[in-house]
Every structure is written in C-alpha cells, then in structure tokens.
C-alpha cells in the first residue's frame, strides 16, 4: 500500500443554509495524480480552500502526513508541505517576476526574519528562483513587473510559485484555464514531470477531458459538494453518474 499523504475525513462547510462541501472523505497517496471534476459550483475550489485553510471547516478533519491540521493557519499548513496554486491568479502585481518566485523560496528557506542582511546577498535564493523560472519558460521575463505579463504568463508564474514551494501535496486549480493552445503544454508537461517523480501527491481540478485522460491516475467527482464517484479514470468515466450528469456538459474534449 502506498503512503497516504493527505486525508480529509467528513470534511464539511456550510455557508448559511448552503452546504458547499458535504462530508467529503478521501485519501490521497504518494505518487498519485487525482483529478477532481464536477460542474461549476460543485465545490471543488471550496474543497481546496478547506484543505489549505483559507476557509475554516464547519465539520470534519484534514490530516497531512498523519498530522491533524484542521485548526492550523494557512501559513503553517504551507510550511508543513501543503502547496496550492489558485484558480484566479493571485500574485504580487507590483513586484518583478523573479521577486515573486524568490519570495516563495525565501519563505521555504525560512529567511523571512533576516532583518539586517541584504536581500541581494542571498544569491542562492536567486539561483533557485531562476531555476524554477526556467522550468516554466519565464526566465527571459524575470525583471518584468508581474502586472505587465500576459494572462498566460501570469498563469505560468502561478504554477512556478507552487513548484518553488516544493510541497508534499500539490494542489492545482484549473492551471491552464484561459491559456492559449501553445502555452498550456508547458504547464501540463511540468505537471507530468512532477507526477513522474512519484514522491508527492497531486490534486488537479480540471475540466478538459483530454488532460484528465493523459494525466490522471484517479478521478473523484464532486456534485453539490458531495463525493459522487471515486475510482480509476476508465471506471469513473464509464459510470452512470458521470455519464448522465456531466459528460455532455462539463467534461468536454478540447
């Protein structure tokens, strides 16, 4: 049996009367890429928010490598190995591309409370940040302000910042949304590379069928916040619940 890295246990959140995530119990294992699908408003992003801590859970538990992190702060979860890229691009707009990634590595290396050293003298942080930028093919834009980047490049930077964190659990929320056909492969190839390393677990919210088919080891389906199906891709895609509810609309071949 492979190692369980992340586990949610009856995870639930209610907004007033509306149950956005409804008792979702699921375990994610090292070396596994799990696609999370479901129609708009199914609760996929909210499920991520509960796991990474942006929204407190009403009920249920989250465990990271066996440790209960249900009450931990967002920053602490991140430091324990939970990494997240956001569906809506969420960067430091008036800082340079390099600085955005450097900040992540600096956090990871615990250098944030160094008050009297020059940031520029920490060349190892810059070197590492450049290596990450090369992986997403943004190294030539390192000195640009983030606000000057195209949407596609901002999405790439979003992914770069997650990779820079080097987490045990990668959470991608529609990483290629709004990217052009020639930009998306850079990101998808990267995810495939991460998967090939087989030490971490990857959660991927994605609508595009072909992406899921090539990358996913497993699919879970959320419907009205509840877990509607969970299994290997072939079985889940063939199942009645998916065929009836989503095949026609959400899981489209692109």
């Amino acid at each position: 049996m492979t190692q369980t890295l992340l586990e949610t246990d009856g995870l639930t959140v209610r907004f007033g009367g509306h149950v956005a995530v409804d008792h979702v119990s699921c375990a994610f294992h090292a070396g596994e890429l799990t696609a999370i699908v479901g129609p708009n408003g199914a609760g996929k992003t909210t499920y991520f928010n509960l796991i990474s801590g942006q929204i407190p859970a009403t009920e249920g538990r989250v465990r990271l490598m066996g440790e209960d992190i249900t009450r931990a702060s967002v920053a602490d979860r991140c430091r324990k190995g939970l990494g997240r890229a956001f569906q809506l691009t969420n960067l430091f707009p008036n800082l340079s591309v390099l600085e955005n990634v450097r900040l992540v590595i600096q956090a990871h290396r615990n250098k944030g409370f160094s008050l009297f050293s020059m940031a520029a003298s920490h060349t190892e942080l810059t070197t590492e940040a450049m290596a990450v930028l090369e992986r997403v093919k943004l190294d030539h834009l390192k000195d640009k302000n983030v606000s000057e980047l195209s949407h596609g490049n901002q999405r790439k930077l979003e992914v770069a910042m997650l990779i820079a964190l080097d987490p045990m659990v990668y959470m991608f929320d529609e990483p290629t949304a709004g990217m052009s056909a020639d930009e998306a492969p850079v990101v998808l190839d990267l995810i495939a590379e991460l998967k090939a390393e087989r030490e971490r677990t990857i959660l991927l919210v994605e609508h595009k069928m072909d992406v899921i088919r090539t990358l996913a080891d497993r699919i879970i389906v959320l419907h009205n916040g509840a877990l509607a199906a969970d299994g290997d891709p072939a079985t889940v895609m063939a199942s009645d619940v998916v065929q009836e509810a989503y095949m026609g609309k959400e899981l489209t071949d692109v």
Partner: protein
Amino acid sequence: MLINILSGDKPRSVILTVLLLGILVALAFAPFLFPGVRSLETAARICIFIVLVASYDLLLGYGGIVSFAHTMFFGLGAYGVALASENMGRGWGSLAVGTVAGAVAAAVLALVIGLFSLRVRAIFFAMITLAVASAVAVLVSQLSGITGGEDGLNYSIPRELTPAFRLGEFLGVKINGKLLNYYLVFFASLALFLMLLRVVNSPFGRVLQAIRENDFRAEAIGYRVIYYRIAATCLSAAVAALAGSIFAIWLRYVGPDTTLSFEIMLDILLMVVIGGMGTMYGAVLGATIFVLAQNYLQNLMGAASEATTGLPLIPDLLNPDRWLLWLGVLFILSVYFFPTGIVGRLREGRRA
C-alpha cells in the same frame, strides 16, 4: 562598499542622487555652511525628522499599515530622556537609560497594540493607535506632577553637549558643546537611517512589500503575516522612540506640543507623501522640504506681504499667519503632480 552602506538601494536617478548628496553635505557641514543658531536648529530638526519619517514609511510605505501613534512613540523616547535626566540627575548615564527605556517601552507598547488589533483588520489597527495615542497625550498632560503637564520639562544634559562647553574656534565658527551635540544628532540620525535602509532591503523588507501587495498570497506561501506586521510595528516604534530621544537631547526640553501633538503626526504623514511612500529616500526629501518650508516659508511670506502692501487682498493672503494654507496648497499640488512622491517622479522620469 558604498553600495553596501546603501544596502544596494541605489537612488536610480541623477537628479535624486544630486539632491541626496546635496542634503547630506549640507547637513554634515551645517555648522560651517550656515552659521547661526536658527539654521543649526533647522538642520538638527531635519536630521531627526528624516529618521522619524523613514521609520513611519517602514510601516506605511513598506508594510501598508496605517498608524496614528507614531508621535506617541516619538514622545516616549523624548520623555524617557527627560524623565531620566530629571530623576537621575544630569549625566551620560541618564541619557543612555532614558533612551533605552524609551525604545523598549515603545516596542512593548507597539507589541501589545499589534497583538490586540493587527489580528483583526488593518483599519482596526489604525483606530486603536488613534485611541491609544490620544489617551497617552491626555495622560501626559494630566500627570503634571511627573511629566510637567502642558508646560513640559526642562532638564540638564552633560555639560559637554551644551554651549557652555567651549573648545575654541575653527574657520570662524565657535567649537562648543552645542556643535558636538549637533554632530551627535547628525551621526545618530545617519546611522538610524542607514539601518532602516538596510531593513527595507533585507529579506524581511521584501516580505513586508509582499504583504502590502497581497497579504492573502503571502500567507499562502508560508509567511505568518501577523508576525511580520507586528515585527514591523515594533521596529518602527523603537526607531521613532530613538528619534525622540535624540530630539530631547538636542532640545533639552520636552512638552506635549513638541513631541506628542497630533499636528506632528499630520506633518509626518505629509512628509511621507510628499517625498514618496515606499522609498526611504522619500523620507529624506520630504522631511527636508517640509522642515525648511515650516521654518522659512513664514519669513518669505512676511517679506512678500510687506512688499505688496498697497495692493488689495494679496498682502492678506501672504500674511505669515496663512503659511499653513500655503503649505496645504503646496501639498495638494505635489500630490496632484507627483502622486508617487518626489522620489517616485524622479525615478519615473529616468525610465521615460
């Protein structure tokens, strides 16, 4: 080497470099370049306000935190020196004890305010600082037995720092304790400024900027935002207190009007905005221009008013009592034409 002293933060504009060098030279040789009691007062005040404004900019410009308690911290440092000198007697020891006690008290008070309010929301912090600062100002004027109330305190400092301590003459300028005192102010301010410059260019400074830009994401990549905000608040408060101590050593007097008043808080805000938020060099320009205007605009206006007697309305408008009005006009114009402050404008100019 020089870059290292400036922590790698180059002025990045020729005009700015010239202006900064000009101010540095003028302040360094002020006693020789501008003899006279009044100009030395002005120079010392500029030094001290540069530090005070820079420490405020660490909070506002880098951390994106609005505080109205900066003069309170300034006052804590000043009263620290005053009370120590008053109660322990004249001496270097009193100055040291007062300075350290003021800075520690400021940092602790900032920590308490931060712990209570920064957890909630930024606006809440602004409101709490306003409330605490008002409370302290009232307290200081009420406890007249200890603080001298509205009259403030006069106290003695070591003789070596007073005009009575004479060493002779150099280049036609009397070398005395007052001059030594000025250089104490100058070098202490320079050191504090360079320290702040280092802090904003350190990894910590980068985190503050990240938090200002997007605190949500800063937290999501693993920075405990609240700790950074509190640390910035404490550091800013401690440096403000140190500036206050220097001011108290220079003036040999403290009172609510010179250190605690809300008017000074507004002055600081204006200086930050005029110079340019989020750049330490902005503090230098903002403080210099503002203090000069404060000290000489009235003279200038007095002269202009007399020169225009006979004309309708104009002498009235130029009456020295209206100087604040003109300062306001200057402020509005500068915000309108230089929304990023003078430093921001100069740096843009180069890029264009």
